[in-house]
């Protein structure tokens, strides 16, 4: 337990200066949204698709008021509630898609790097093709295809994000595997008679996944944007299924001309904040975990005045 805690605290204890502040600020911002997501049913005053409470209908496009601090939109929904519920949707999608990426991308990268040959060449070709495709376009195409299967659900959007981001996981893991498998400890594992599967699982895995957490947080920020983009185009999650900031923004577009600012401002602000928070965490982690960027907190060197016995050097020559 203590080891887990100290491992978790390591990024904080080992960073200095800007990297540390980036990490702290990022963690705080992200934590607010995570709390919103987890406790949405209790934090949000109303449901995300609720247009009346206690028998009274909400006003249409109502100004911010004590009952609705962020106002209401043209579907009579409470904007504050939708922003809070939106955090839940965003995190659900991001976590699911990163989970898919890791579960698929890491083993594929490991196999591909370890065995090489035609398997490697085929996978590299596929992944490079995916990577070369404009990512947003790819997400649109995939969610179009999946809309028939899953409808505009969280799963469908997560899968389309997975297709966008999986090449990065694959490539990172494959490349680290390629260099790690040349290490002498892999040969040593062979020399004790380990099977390929054992070597990959117990000797390579732990050493090649180290950059995945950083990649995960950085991708999460990007994924939030892609998700909002899909929602804005109406390809994401429908407003009755879940609250989604991008979709809300799209609906708020029409309001902007008539001087209604609150329907667009708050979801937009939520997107900006969460993306900033996740980026800060990612960059902060990168500076801590990536040895080429890491700058450890060095204690200043203070040379005490000389002790008498070290200055007794006599004149030489």
């Amino acid at each position, binding site marked *: 337990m203590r080891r887990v805690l100290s491992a978790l605290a390591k990024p904080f204890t080992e960073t200095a200066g800007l990297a540390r502040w980036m990490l702290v600020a990022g963690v705080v911002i992200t934590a607010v949204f995570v709390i919103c997501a987890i406790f949405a049913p209790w934090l949000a005053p109303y449901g995300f698709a609720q247009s009346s409470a206690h028998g009274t209908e909400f006003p249409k496009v109502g100004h911010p008021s004590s009952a609705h601090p962020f106002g209401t939109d043209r579907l009579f929904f409470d904007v504050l509630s939708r922003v809070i519920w939106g955090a839940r949707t965003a995190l659900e999608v991001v976590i699911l898609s990163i989970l898919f990426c890791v579960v698929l991308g890491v083993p594929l990268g490991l196999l591909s790097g370890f065995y090489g040959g035609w398997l490697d060449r085929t996978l590299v070709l596929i992944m490079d093709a995916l990577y070369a495709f404009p990512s947003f376009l790819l997400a649109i195409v995939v969610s179009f295809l999946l809309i028939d299967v899953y409808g505009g659900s969280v799963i469908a959007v997560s899968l389309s994000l997975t297709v966008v981001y999986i090449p990065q996981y694959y490539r990172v893991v494959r490349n680290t595997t390629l260099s790690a498998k040349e290490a*002498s*400890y892999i040969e*040593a*594992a062979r020399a004790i*008679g380990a*099977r390929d599967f*054992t070597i990959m699982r*117990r*000797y390579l895995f732990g*050493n090649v996944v180290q950059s995945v957490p950083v990649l995960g947080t950085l991708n999460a920020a990007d994924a939030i944007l892609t998700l909002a983009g899909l929602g804005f185009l109406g390809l994401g999650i429908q407003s009755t299924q879940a609250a989604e900031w991008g979709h809300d923004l799209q609906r708020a577009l029409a309001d902007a001309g008539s001087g209604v600012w609150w329907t667009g401002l708050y979801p937009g602000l939520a997107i900006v904040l969460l993306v900033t928070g996740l980026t800060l965490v990612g960059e902060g982690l990168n500076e801590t975990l990536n040895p080429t960027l890491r700058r450890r907190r060095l204690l200043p060197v203070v040379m005490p005045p000389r002790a008498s016995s070290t200055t007794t050097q006599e004149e030489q020559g």
Partner: protein
Amino acid sequence: MPTKPDTQTGTGPLVEVRHLSVHFQLRGGTMARLFGRDIGTIKAVDGIDLDLQPGEVVGLVGESGSGKSTLGRALLGLVPATTGSIRLQDQDIARMSRRQLREIRRVVQMVFQDPNAALNPSMTVEQAVGDALRVHGMRSASRRREGVVKALERVGLSPVELFLNKYPRDLSGGQKQRVVMARAIVLNPTLLVADEPVSMLDMSVRAKILQLMLDLKSELGLTYIYITHDLATAKYFCDRVAIMYLGRVVEIGPTEEIFAQPRHPYTKALLSAIPEPDPDKMVPRDLPRGEIPDAADPPLGCAFHPRCPEAVRGCGWESRDLRALVEQHWLRTDMAYDEEQAVIGDLDHLDAPATSATLGTGGAGAVRAILDRVRAEDPSEPLWSGVTSIEDAGPGVTVHFEPAEPPALRRAGGVDVACVLYPDEGTGRASD
């Protein structure tokens, strides 16, 4: 070959290596790789015979690129044999399936050169050593721990509790090498291949690790292959020594015999290259020139001849030697370089090994004059004795050399040597 009298079983050698070759295909640049074209072959191990008696320590000594590590790895099946056989316990390691190979590694184990790289950085000492037991089917964690504790105690890592949960980064170099040894002996092997086990360690710990290896040998009845570039440790540690150069054994015999009377010029060179810390025992030395050549294009004839201080006529002189000789000449005469270089022209084409070499662009007579000047500088240079004729060829000359085969291992005194200076004892001195 002399056998140790105190063999454990008395039933002959533990390992019999016969005509073993390990060749690697080279693949060149981007284009070649794209089309899967082979550029050449490296004969890392090239036709080696070696017997290992039970309980013996055999040293494989040579520079990097001599094939000593590849030979050691072939004994574990870590690199596939191209031809030949490795017989151990009535099985041929060179022809084993992957499954059989995994099994044979209970019997043959390996210690690696760099203790910092030979341990998985994300495994504790207990996991690292215990994994050897685990991959060989020991499921019970408590029995594994028992085995690990015993092995760690054997290699001197006690109190064991201090080490079990340490990661490699928490250990010193010597301690890491002890863990590597523990991992090697935990399966109770009979043969241990030690690939430069002390060369990365500090002087002050080398002796400790060597002592540990000697202790383990007598306690566990191990047989060692000791791979090293350092004849000083080999002298202390080995019963027999095989000197290797470019994939072949050039001299093999009992340690005392080899050190008392080294025969092959390469052995002599290696011996003279060891820096001697005792100022009283220092001797002026005649070092071989150059470095170990590219194994993809080994010298013709005897592979050592371009560097050999004792080279003679039948060593297999060739085009590249001529290039080296002309370049040597230019090292000495700094004034004449520009002028002579204009006559000789480019030398790069001589890098293709051949027993005839055409060179020169400034007229046959001028080229001959330069070659004569080179020859006059050092008339005793053995290359000239290998020249059969020099013909005019267009604006230059063609130098023809006497072709030669690489010398085979032949009996000489108590050892076997592969050198034209030591013709077969049985047939008398034939090639005079």
